């Protein structure tokens, strides 16, 4: 899969629930509509939580990939 270009990167490695969600919310707030946030997390719970968060807020979870316990999310601001 070709790498999606992001406007902002957020590293949440080592952080546990609910910090990745809270930091993602703050980062998304700083973007304009249509811009993309790349978020990296190691909390395995963030996989379901990010999907739920995107579902509720309406921001688009463009992709999620995992490699050796590191999760990478791309989120497009609505």
């Amino acid at each position, binding site marked *: 899969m070709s790498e999606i270009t992001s406007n902002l990167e957020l590293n949440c490695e080592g*952080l*546990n629930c*609910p*910090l990745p969600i*809270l930091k993602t*919310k703050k980062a998304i707030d700083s973007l304009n509509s249509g811009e993309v946030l790349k978020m990296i997390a190691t909390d395995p719970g963030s996989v379901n939580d990010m999907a*739920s968060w995107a579902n*509720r*807020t*309406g921001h688009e979870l463009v992709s999620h990939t995992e490699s050796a316990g590191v999760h990478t999310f791309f989120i497009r601001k609505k």
Partner: protein
Amino acid sequence: MADTKKLAIIASQGTLDWGYPPFILASTAAAMDMEAVIFFTFYGLPLLKKEIDAKVSPHCNPAMPMKMPFGSKDFQSINWPIPNAISGNVPGFDNMATMLMKETFKKKGVATIEQLRGMCQEFGVRFIACQMTMEVFGFEKEEFIDGVEYGGAATFLEYAADADISLFI
């Protein structure tokens, strides 16, 4: 979102373990574009103090795992059974249990209660302190952080009447 969901929480406990859930849920709700209010009453009030001094006690709490935040992974995964005769009689035992839990949380990348409380305020979560229990237990407004509202049962219920989620913690 057209209709904003509302979360109403009553925080009635002030120990370290019971102090986390109100702030975790309220901050996350706000991050999910919900409105959130926490009503602090009885032993929940100290969570509004400028310096939170919440402790945890394994005494008479057999479900509480005592974990060591150091050593090998196997060592850290041991649940240490603490007899009540020890947890209730050894001076400073609660302080030690509190220190161990804080250290374990820190190692696991969990935010501190103060951090989560700050994020709640940043995200616009409303804090209401129960005026009646403040007077009963002798709390002064000066002891609490800024931005706290004061009220009673009716103040909370007026908001909670339209809430989609109501929790008593």
